[in-house]
Every structure is written in structure tokens, then in C-alpha cells.
């Protein structure tokens, strides 16, 4: 591992795009909020690149944390790409995991998480969250 370690990525949320935090030290990528940006593929490109770079340069485990409450179809496509990337890493023997958080009272959000999980074999936890306040 001679390459320099990856930078922390920290993109604040907007009305239509999620907050993105990627921390190589923690081995964690976190997406939180709603995802329907104007140019979805542009938005997700750096995330996909960061993930690929981490898997290439780093040996440590990686967790993808999803706290998305709404996704447009392009975002669904980008997320499926990210999941496929993780699934491949999993098959290659890497320690990768996915934690998908959803609002405990939102059955629909859980149904969606189940759809994303289907066909995947990597550790994929669907975790209900108590509503705040």
C-alpha cells in the first residue's frame, strides 16, 4: 500500500441530495437524507470512485451506512451499482457490510430495503430507528 490514503469526503445535504460522509479511518461511508439531485449520476460519481479507491488501496473493513428516505430512479440505479461493487468485494473475501436504517413506523421504507437486499449475500442489516421527539 504505497499510495497515499484517501481523504475524508464530507458533502452537506441539500433539499434534493443526501449528506455524504466517507471516512477512510473508520472504514465508513454514510449517505443520509433524500436523493433526487438534478444530475444524479454526476452526484454519485465521486462516491463510486471513493469506494473503488478504498477497496483497491485499503485492506481494512468497510461499512456502507444508508439513511435515505427517498430515492429517484437514477439514485436507485447508482445505489445498486454501489451495492454490486460491495457484493463483488464480499465475494473476493473482503470484510464489507451494509447497514440500512429506516423509520420504525414506515413499513414502506422497510419493503424497499428488502428489495435492495434481494440477491445479495454480503452482510446486510435492516435496522429500524425510533422516531425522534
Amino acid at each position, binding site marked *: 500500500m504505497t499510495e497515499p490514503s484517501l481523504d475524508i469526503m464530507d458533502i452537506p445535504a441539500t433539499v434534493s441530495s443526501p449528506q455524504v460522509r466517507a471516512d477512510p479511518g473508520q472504514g465508513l461511508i454514510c449517505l443520509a437524507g433524500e436523493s433526487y439531485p438534478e444530475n444524479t449520476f454526476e452526484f454519485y460519481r465521486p462516491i463510486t470512485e471513493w469506494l473503488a479507491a478504498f477497496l483497491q488501496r485499503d485492506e481494512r473493513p468497510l461499512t456502507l451506512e444508508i439513511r435515505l428516505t427517498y430515492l429517484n430512479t437514477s439514485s436507485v440505479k447508482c445505489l*445498486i451499482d454501489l451495492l*454490486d461493487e460491495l457484493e463483488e468485494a464480499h465475494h473476493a473475501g473482503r470484510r464489507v457490510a451494509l447497514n440500512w436504517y429506516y423509520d420504525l413506523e414506515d413499513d414502506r421504507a422497510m*419493503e*424497499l430495503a428488502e428489495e*435492495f437486499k434481494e*440477491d445479495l449475500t454480503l452482510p446486510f442489516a435492516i435496522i429500524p430507528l425510533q422516531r425522534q421527539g
Partner: protein
Amino acid sequence: MEEARVIMMLTGALAQLAPEDALRPVLEALLREHRKQDAQLRKLTRISDRYQKQLKEANLALAQASFTDLLTGLPNRRAMVERVNGELGRSDRNHASPALLMVDVDHFKQVNDSYGHETGDQVLQSLANTLRSTVRAYDTCARWGGEEFLVLLPETAMADAVGVGEKLRRAAQQRPEGEPLPGITLSIGVAVHRQGETPAAVLRRADDAMYEAKRQGRNRVVAAE
């Protein structure tokens, strides 16, 4: 299923290649990529379908909520305006005049003041049930305002409409057994739609008749002129 056909062709081509053919790894890589794309597309479509279904359900729930009175579960004023307009249009086309009953609870303010708003709400809920179960299946009861209800009777002559009004008035007076709510009476104004009359005009006549019932001492049904 374009993708499925490509996968079939590649599989067929691979089966014909000799094991040591130099093209084999290329075709195998292509086949893998196509299988992956195929799986992705299926997944994307499935998730998209689910989103659409959820959106449809949410829209339906929203539409239902926007046409329903929260307290009584009856159609609200918005829903009733649409229904009345539709029925009056039918009336003009088919000469089948509907009747409108404006129903108002007598001295409702006293119920609220003496027993509290919670009891007032329960009285309205109970009355809504009484109205709903007393009218015919094809009639509509709606919460029109605070303690005001509007009943729409399709294709009904004045004598029959007054009959329904009397039935409602008596039913409201007889509380269901064991129900510990204060007794109420109703003042009801009845108007039958005239050909070409606007919704506002016929509603005004029903309203006026209801106020006439109040003037005559309440707890009665008055037919509009």
C-alpha cells in the same frame, strides 16, 4: 427481453467453442457482464415498480383524507360540494330533482359549554352515525360545518324528503341505549332542486328553511317554498 436473447446467443456461441479457443475468455467476460446488467435492470425495475405502487397508495390515502371529515368520518364539505354539483347536473339533464336537507343541532353551544368540547365532539360523532344509518343507501350525509350536516337525497320529491327529515329528527332525539350523552334535537330545512337552479340558490333555500324551523321553535322539519 433483448438482454435475455443476447445471453442465450453468447451461451450458444460458448458451447460451440473449443475449450482452448482464444475467444472463450472474451465471450465469458461478455456473458458475465450481460448477466450482471440483466440482473441490475430487473432489480431496478422491481424497486421502481414498488416506489410507484407506494406513491399510488399514498395518493389514494391523501385523496381519501382530503374528502373525509376527521371527527365524524363523513364526507366533508369539499366532497359534498362535488357530489351536490354532480347530482344537480344530473337533475338538469334527466329531470330527476334531488332534495337537500340542511340539518342543524339545536343549542349545540350549550352542550359544549355545559359538558365540555370533548362531549360535544362525541355528540357530533354519535349524531353522524345516526344520520348515516337512518338515510337510504343511495343518500349522502356530510359534515357541512361545525354542528351543521347536509343530506343529499337523489331524485326525491318534497313529501318523501320531509319524511326522511322527520325520520332523522326522531332518530336524533332517541339516543342509543346506554349512551351517556346529553340529548339533542335537530332543526331541518328541506329544499328540492328546481330545473336550472344553481347549487348556491338551492342551498340557500334549504338554509333559509332550516332557520325558519329555528324560528318556529326548533326540533322540527320545514319545507322550503
